[in-house]
């Protein structure tokens, strides 16, 4: 009886040791495979066509319909307009990046394609105030574009 038990234990032990060797073989296999990572700040992954980064605006296309502002789930867009006769013109187009959740609903709902999602994704700043930006400002993305992949 004891002998059978002993043989069983030894057998389990050998199976266990073999499983460990199989594990070692798996890790050794990957030592000789090329790395899959990128050296981030110097190499960058190209973003897809549909990538949703910061919100961008083509002011000339905007018809001031307020659809984007109504759609935004986090209320990060704030628009004001001037009324001249029957023509509406944009006055301000505030975009509070701090609240933005990059859902892309505003771009989807825009009837003229004035709002787009850019591919800027490195959006850390040192000052919180810089996150509240006016999309009509021509230099609005100077803080980030130099790091963006175009």
């Amino acid at each position, binding site marked *: 009886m004891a002998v059978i038990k002993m043989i069983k234990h030894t057998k389990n032990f050998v199976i266990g040791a073999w499983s460990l060797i*199989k594990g070692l073989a798996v890790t050794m296999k990957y030592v000789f495979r090329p790395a899959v990572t990128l050296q981030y700040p110097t190499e960058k992954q190209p973003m897809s066509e549909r990538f*949703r980064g910061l919100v961008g605006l083509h002011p000339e296309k905007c018809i001031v319909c307020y659809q984007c502002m109504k759609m935004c789930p986090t209320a990060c867009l704030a628009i004001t307009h001037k009324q001249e006769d029957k023509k509406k013109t944009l006055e301000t187009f505030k975009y509070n990046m701090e609240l933005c959740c990059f859902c892309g609903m505003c771009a*989807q709902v825009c009837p003229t394609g004035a709002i787009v999602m850019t591919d800027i994704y490195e959006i850390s700043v040192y000052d919180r105030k810089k996150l509240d930006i006016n999309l009509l400002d021509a230099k609005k993305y100077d803080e980030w574009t130099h790091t963006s992949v175009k």
Partner: protein
Amino acid sequence: MDTTRTKDIYTEEFLINMGPQHPSTHGVLSLELKLDGEIIRECTPHIGYLHRSMEKIAENRTYTQFIPFTDRLDYVASMNNNLGYVMAVEKLLNLEVSERAKYIRVIVAELNRIASHLIAVGTFAQDLGAFATPLFYCFREREKIIDIFDRICGNRLTYNYIRIGGVQFDLPKGIDEKIKEFIKYMRPKVDDYDNLLTYNAIFLARSKNIGVLPKDLAINYSVTGPSLRASGVKWDLRKDEPYLVYNKFEFDIPIGENGDSWDRYKIRIEEIRQSLRIVEQAIDALPGGEPAVKVGRIHKPAPSEAYFRTENPRGELGFYIVSDGSMYPYRLKIRAPSFSNLAVLPELVKGVKIADIVCVLGSFDVLMGEIDR
């Protein structure tokens, strides 16, 4: 306090707070442990550190506006959350979506299930002390899925892709080749995990017969998903209450024998294989047509209520929506699978070692974003 005092030397239980900042509590879970040396006498979970009052937020958003918020519930399986919520709203609206949309939904949901299970497997190995290597392998494979999602919907974690009435975009050109390539790439990798972890002697010693969850207890605690199937209950909503087009595909439901930590892990590995099968069949059978039914931006369902549950990677995710006829939900309840799965933890860890609590918790693969909501 239980003290056994002899003349000068005495021992007593001591209290240890595991979390909310702890490497293996999967986020901000806090466990109050009463220890007798290394052995756990009592475990009290404290949750709510990530409570963002999603249900209150939902009462203030339109039905469409709430979709991005569902991404943030179970943030490693956003597609499945989008799906669960959107299906509940569609049930409320009595909306039928196109056949193509259904197939696309199945493909993305199953791909996301694989991604989520990969994280579960990697972090479980990490919890057992296989430091970083399996986790990195899993993330390497997950990255391929993320790349596919990046091309499909434009984001890498919070997808916000599935919409009421269909999906946001049609699949981009050439993505089906990419998905097929991924399936071909993924199959041998799962075998690698088997060699590296599943049948590894140390791994088996650590996870076999630890945290055994019997069948009746699992059902009584309303444990769902892979954790329930590991206890030997053959219950999968994709088979038992098929939604979308799951009844058109051939796949098996893996079930465990003992309901221990190893079984819960093994079920996930097997489900990765089954999901690959489903994706393969769905890609081949993808019909043409419109990816979305034209519906407005604002929905005003008749005053009624709907409960719909889907099979999430972690279990059954249910949305209970009450409408009062306005464009906002009157009440939205999220039945999070991890919430019920975590509730069973104190029962399972009485009398195990401190190293095993990490193993049991890891095998349930709970996610605090979903529990705290």
